[in-house]
């Protein structure tokens, strides 16, 4: 046994050592500025003509939750397969990652969701309609605006009839947009979905000709006018009335309706918008030599750059800074007299270069200098619109899409159809909420600022191009303006004051350094002097 001294030593070696957690220091007292989350509009949603909540449904895609993605996207846009094909995706231009590496492939992701939903439909899975209401509504025009409105009204449980003057449904989707941009089977499937929701299509019904607005108001409790902007503008040059001169929409409709056209060997398209380019490409695909004459320079062409590029690739010849003065027609040959123009910006007056005229011979002249709404639809009713809004002077009559805005995009038209459905539901006093959330997304609030891009941290967000897998690609989304719980605030807090699954900021300890706000990739966290959460600790 060891001889031990009996006295125990009172002082352990630990004397002078700290064991009390430093949590008792409420360092939140030091704070001058307080971080808080302020959601903003995403640049993509802001740029999107229908203000789709892009990052919201992308969030679902990154989780592999396609059902959730469909549910989220369809509140903004019921036809993601269509817009996935035809939309110019202004969202991608404004995407924050466009400043960093490459924009998110919003269009592709949108298309994937839409095609996923169409495959489900093809395998027999119908969209659930929660209820049926004995309310009859009419939609005039089956273009994207009309179809979108019909979709939402049907989902609300209403009896929807779509009136279409053409023998096929779809408006510009069927007759204007070239097949190479929108495969027609996609449109067919979307129409089938609508029919499965109980939407009735009446083709050949033309407002102002074989039906009247008054009659519609009689038969339906609400009417949505979405007849588009189908009245083609004139060139206002001599010879325009010749049979060898045709409007772009008229030409595209004839092609898409399968009408037998003469074999045109050479075609001149006049105009610089999307319709001009579509017509030029369609004509080129039908075997003609095609030239497109535009009165200004390429950089100010209103047509989308992608379209112009694909027209160039297809072999369309571009003539810039020329405008037609006159068209002669003789035995099937059109001779167009063109003058050169001085360079000008859009909206400026065109002036021609003196003595610069030259002739160009072709089989057909396609005029694509714009469209107007055809207001003869109102018939005897005195219809008037209220600016860009969806309501008209007639109770129960709504109007939207190109009819109101003039020629715009498919996405804008779908957005207008959606907003019309919202307005009609309100007019009809129909609650659009369901246990799974609202059928129509809440109204886009443009008074909220748009999140601005700030430099990203390449360690957290490696520079990388688009991914092949939709889930991974969706994972690149920064969710600008909206907290998607990425955790960057948590990662960079020197005070461990960000915690929990919601990344709450613990104001007991937050010293207000501001790193979280600076590093927040979504631009959601902001520093402010207003201190809302400090009641619970002494000052």
């Amino acid at each position, binding site marked *: 046994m060891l001889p031990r001294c009996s006295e125990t030593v009172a002082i352990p070696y630990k004397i*002078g*050592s*700290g*064991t*009390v*957690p*430093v*949590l*008792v*220091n*409420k*360092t939140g007292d*030091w704070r001058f500025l307080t971080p808080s989350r302020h959601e903003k509009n995403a640049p993509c949603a802001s740029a999107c003509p229908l203000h789709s909540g892009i990052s919201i449904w992308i969030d679902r895609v*990154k*989780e592999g939750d396609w059902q959730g993605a469909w549910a989220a996207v369809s509140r903004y846009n019921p036809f993601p397969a269509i817009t996935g094909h035809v939309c110019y995706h202004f969202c991608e231009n404004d995407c924050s990652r466009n400043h*960093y*590496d490459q924009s998110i492939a919003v269009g592709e992701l949108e298309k994937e969701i839409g095609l996923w939903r169409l495959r489900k439909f093809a395998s027999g899975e119908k969209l659930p309609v929660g209820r049926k209401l004995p309310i009859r509504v009419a939609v005039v025009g089956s273009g994207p605006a009309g179809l979108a409105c019909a979709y939402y009204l049907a989902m609300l449980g209403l009896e929807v009839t779509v009136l279409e003057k053409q023998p096929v449904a779809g408006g510009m989707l069927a007759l204007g947009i070239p097949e190479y941009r929108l495969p027609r089977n996609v449109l067919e499937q979307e129409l089938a979905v609508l029919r499965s929701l109980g939407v009735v299509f009446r083709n050949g019904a033309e407002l102002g000709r074989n039906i009247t607005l008054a009659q519609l108001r009689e038969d339906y409790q609400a009417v949505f006018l979405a007849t588009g902007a189908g009245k083609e503008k004139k060139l206002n040059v001599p010879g325009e009335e010749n049979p060898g001169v045709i409007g772009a929409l008229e030409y595209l409709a004839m092609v898409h309706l399968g009408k037998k056209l003469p074999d045109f060997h050479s075609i001149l398209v006049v105009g610089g918008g999307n319709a001009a380019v579509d017509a030029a490409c369609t004509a080129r695909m039908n075997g003609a030599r095609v030239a497109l004459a535009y009165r200004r320079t390429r950089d100010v062409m209103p047509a989308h750059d992608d379209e112009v590029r694909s027209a160039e690739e297809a072999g369309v010849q571009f003539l810039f800074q020329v405008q037609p003065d006159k068209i002669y027609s003789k035995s099937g040959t059109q001779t167009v007299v063109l003058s050169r123009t001085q360079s000008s910006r859009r909206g400026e007056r065109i002036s021609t270069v003196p003595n610069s005229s030259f002739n160009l011979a072709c089989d057909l002249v396609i005029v694509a200098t714009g469209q107007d709404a055809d207001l003869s639809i109102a018939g005897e009713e005195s219809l008037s619109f209220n600016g860009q809004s969806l309501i008209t002077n007639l109770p129960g009559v709504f109007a939207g899409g190109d009819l109101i805005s003039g020629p715009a995009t498919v996405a804008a038209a779908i957005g207008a159809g959606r907003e019309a459905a919202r307005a009609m539901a309100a007019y009809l006093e129909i609650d659009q909420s369901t246990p799974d959330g609202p059928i129509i997304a809440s109204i886009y609030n443009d008074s909220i600022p748009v999140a601005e891009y700030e*430099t990203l*941290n*390449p*360690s*957290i*967000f*490696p*520079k*990388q191009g688009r*991914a*092949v*897998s939709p*889930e*991974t690609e*969706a*994972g*690149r*989304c920064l*969710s600008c303006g909206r907290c*998607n*719980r*990425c*955790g*960057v605030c*948590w*990662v*960079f*807090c*020197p*005070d*461990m*004051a960000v915690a929990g699954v919601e990344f709450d900021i*613990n104001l*007991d*300890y937050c*010293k*207000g*350094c*501001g*790193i979280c*706000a*600076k*590093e927040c990739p979504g631009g959601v966290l902001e520093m402010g002097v207003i201190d809302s959460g400090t009641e619970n600790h002494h000052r």
Partner: protein
Amino acid sequence: MGGEPLMKQVFNDIPQEEYMLSGHTACPGCSAALSIRHATKALGKETVFVITACCFSIISGQLPLRTFELNVFHCPFPSAASTGSGLKRGLAAMGDTTTQVVVLAGDGGTFDIGLQGLSAAAERNEDIIFICYDNEAYMNTGMQRSSATPFGSKSATSPAPKVKENPKKDIMKIIEAHAIPYAATATVAYPKDLLAKFQKAKTIKGFRFFHILCPCPPGWGVESDQTVELSRLAVETGVFPLYEVENGEVTLNVTPQTLRPVADYLGSQRRFSTLSAEDISKIQATIDRSWQALLNRSNTAEIQEG
């Protein structure tokens, strides 16, 4: 590509466990506190810290408090490496070979007063991790010049116009000269890189050295929210390249295709406010040279985009 979506990666790659507690008394925006927070996440529970005189003498808590969820032993200023080595040897003598002994020292305790003991511990290849968190001056005593203070910087003991005339000591070269198994630079702007390096270091036996640049808001004259951004700029401008030296082999971890101009880094720091355009070109030239030298001897690696 493929695998986990990026946002999930951000969150999942970084261990949830915290070994530092809220309530510590580091200045707002302290990148040293943040760096060590992440280092401890990688180091884990079986870690003992030896802390020499530095900002962490304060940050680790005043009696009876403690900031770390780990055992911490303080030691006199020049003795960081030797006390840590002794602690490790003491544990080894008692049969504990698994507990990591991690020494924490500032630039003063590493570049200046601690250099002799550090060099000796490295030469003996003591089985410890030595972390130098470098805020480029004696910050805890109020921003006095150290041999880690860069050329042209003001400090409490090199006030304008007598700003520092000499370049910063290249501690990594000194450390490398000891032929230790692992040395790495890191900044908290690249937390995953920092974590991965600590995770790697844990698996290596022998002397392991970390040089972590830690922008200091009061010392550098910057806002408290700039420290992560400056840590990143230091890397992107080549002021502080991220690399590892393993048994003499150099690997660059972040290799920008082109370096950002150093003015982007210097510009917002008040300590550099007296730099002339000529000074900045001189600094740029130095960086360009050392960056090229590093590229030449590194066996890197992918060139990062942008």
